[in-house]
C-alpha cells in the first residue's frame, strides 16, 4: 500500500502531505506517525498541508487524533500551511480543530516547536 513519507529532522518529524488522501491513507499515516514518534523519541511533529486542497471532517479528525496521540507520547504537533479556502470551509463545516496547533508555514512551525521545547527544559 502507498504510504506518506515521514522525515526525521533532529528532534522533529516532518510530514508533507502532497496527495489527495483517501481515508485508508490517512489512517495509515496516523499509525505510522505514532510508531515513528516512539521509535525516534521525537519531541515534535510538523504536518505540512499546504498542498491539500480539501480537508473534510475525516481528514480533520485524523489531524486532531494525531495531535492527541502525539501529546500522550510526549511530542507536540503543529499543522502548518493550511490554505485560506480550506480554513474558511473547515469552519463552515463545523470543525475548528480544537487541540491542534497551527502555524502559517514550516519555518514558523519549527519556531513554535522549539519555543515549546525550551519552555519544557
Amino acid at each position: 500500500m502507498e504510504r506518506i513519507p515521514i522525515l526525521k529532522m533532529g528532534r522533529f518529524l516532518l510530514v508533507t502531505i502532497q496527495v489527495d488522501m483517501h481515508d485508508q491513507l490517512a489512517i495509515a499515516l496516523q499509525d505510522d506517525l505514532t510508531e515513528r514518534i516512539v521509535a525516534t523519541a521525537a519531541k515534535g511533529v510538523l504536518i505540512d498541508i499546504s498542498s491539500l486542497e480539501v480537508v473534510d471532517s475525516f481528514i480533520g479528525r485524523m489531524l486532531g487524533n494525531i495531535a492527541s496521540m502525539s501529546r500522550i507520547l510526549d511530542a507536540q504537533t503543529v499543522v502548518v500551511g493550511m490554505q485560506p479556502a480550506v480554513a474558511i470551509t473547515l469552519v463552515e463545516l463545523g470543525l475548528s480543530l480544537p487541540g491542534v496547533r497551527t502555524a502559517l508555514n514550516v519555518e514558523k512551525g519549527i519556531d513554535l516547536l522549539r519555543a515549546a521545547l525550551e519552555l519544557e527544559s
Partner: protein
Amino acid sequence: MKVLKTETVEVRSTQDVVIVRQRVRSMAIECGFSLVDQTKIVTAASEIARNTVIYGGGGQAIAEHLENERRQGVRLTFEDEGPGIADLSMALKEGYTTGGGLGLGLSGAKRLSNEFEITSAPGKGTRVVLARWK
C-alpha cells in the same frame, strides 16, 4: 434551467471518494467558481460520498453543470440502495453519528451548499441532492 453537462461516478470505495472530489473540482472550475466556492462544494461532496460508501454500501454520484438566466451552478446527486435512514432529523443533527465519526458530514455538507435535500427511508436507500451556485 439548462443542464450543460452531466457526469456519473461510481462510489464504491474510499478511493472513489477521491475521484468524486476531483470530478467535482473540475466541474466547479468550469462553472467559474471562486477557489473558496470550489473548496466548499468539493468538501460537501467528499462528506456525502463517504456516507454513500460507509452507510449506503456504495452507490453513484451524478454531477451536473447547471445554467439558468442569471448564473451557473453545480448540482450533485448521491444515490445508494443501502439500509436507509430511519430518523432524518436526527441524522442531520450536528454531532450525531452512528458510525464513530464526528457527526459533521450531513450537517456540514448542508451548510456548505446553497440547496440541500435528502430523501431516505429504512430499506429504501438514501438520496442526497445538493447544489451550489456561482
